[in-house]
């Protein structure tokens, strides 16, 4: 598929898959905390968020499958594509790290998603807008929760401060990709179904800076070296591993059914 001959429909499917892949992979990552949370409440919270994220991915994959009309379903997109076909952000595939790292990533991703979904909820495609409005309610909880923890860890003990600062320092080179846009975004935006990422970049940065400052943390350098390429299938080594774990059972039993 050459990029200059891409149809609007193909672009829309790609757009939906990018959104869905972010959520599936992050949901799978966050689910690794299940049974390993630092306290019982956090174990529940993280499992809940993982469930929400995978639920969001499932609805978006389902919608992409409907538009594509080739008889695929959400399981096809989740289990039967390889790493180079996944277009999730590298930010989402990084290992869960310690609790501080998981929280730092969740805060960056949820705050970004909040602004993005506030725009997507006005999409012309009513079914898509309906899905987005529903997910937005849950994203707000994720944002509130992760922001509270950034504050608590940053303004907490010497150890928690050190860990959350390290987490932001470590993850910073993956934030630029959040605002990556290409022809796909332009086409979808022109169709009235997309979110103009640049329109909220400053507002998002402000929320991040204010939160980090309130948490007595140092905001890392926005102009440092930044990773790129995930939207076109370039990933860190971590994606292959998480896919292997997530997909192997389904691929071993491709016709298995719950019923």
């Amino acid at each position, binding site marked *: 598929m050459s990029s200059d001959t891409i149809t609007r429909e193909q672009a829309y499917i790609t757009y939906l898959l990018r959104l869905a892949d972010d959520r599936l992979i992050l949901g799978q990552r966050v689910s690794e905390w299940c049974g390993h949370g630092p306290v019982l*409440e*956090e174990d*529940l*919270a993280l499992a*809940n*968020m993982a*469930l*929400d*994220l*995978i*639920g*969001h991915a*499932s*609805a978006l994959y389902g919608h992409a499958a409907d538009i594509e009309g080739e008889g695929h379903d959400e399981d096809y997109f989740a289990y039967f594509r390889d790493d180079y076909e996944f277009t999730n952000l590298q930010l989402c595939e990084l290992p869960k790290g310690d609790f501080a790292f998981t929280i730092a990533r969740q805060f960056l991703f949820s705050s970004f998603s*909040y602004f993005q979904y*506030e725009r997507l909820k006005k999409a012309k495609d*009513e*079914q898509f807008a*309906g*899905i987005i*409005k*529903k*997910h937005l*309610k*849950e994203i*707000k*909880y994720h*944002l*509130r*929760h992760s*922001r*509270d923890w950034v504050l608590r860890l940053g303004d907490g003990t010497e150890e928690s401060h050190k860990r959350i600062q390290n987490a932001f320092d470590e993850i910073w080179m993956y934030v630029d990709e959040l605002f990556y846009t290409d022809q796909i975004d332009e086409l979808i935006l022109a169709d009235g179904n997309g979110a103009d990422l640049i329109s909220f970049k400053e507002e998002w940065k402000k*929320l991040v800076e204010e939160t980090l400052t309130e948490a007595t943390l140092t905001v890392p350098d926005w102009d440092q070296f930044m990773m790129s390429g995930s939207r076109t299938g370039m990933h860190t080594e971590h994606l292959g591993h998480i896919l292997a774990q997530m997909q192997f059972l389904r691929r071993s039993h491709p016709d298995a059914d719950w019923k």
Partner: protein
Amino acid sequence: MSTKTLYTEQQVWGYLKEITDPEIPVLNIIEMGIARSVSIENEKIVVRITPTYSGCPAMNAIEKAVGEKLEEKGIQDYQVLLDYSEPWTTDWMTEEAKSKLKDYGIAPPEKTTKDEDFLKSLSGTKIVPCPFCDSFETELQSEFGSTACKSQYFCNSCHQPFEHFKCI
């Protein structure tokens, strides 16, 4: 004989009333605002339900329970559809449902707030009265509870932990 002559929409609503939420057994799916509409289309009974939370495992159980209930009542020709056109909100729960929740020991959701207030509200905390002693001396323990729809609080007056049905 066709379905149309056998069952009325009203009857089907009556059957749906018998289905309780698997996670909150004191409430039925009408009180929860999950059952959205019943219609008879081409002599087929069509029930539309709206999921509460996108990842809620109870939804599959509810979808299945609706089918089983209809079959139990002798309805063969039916369809259960998931309706995403409007996102589910706790505002759809009936007042009666909210008071049943409170009696069950879950602090009911209040009215939802406008979206625009969200970013400003990030730094504030909401006061939820204790469902056991009505005290306002409560504190949030976690935004997430035993199910996707609940958060956890602790009452400093009667020293009881309790759940709050999140307001979405």
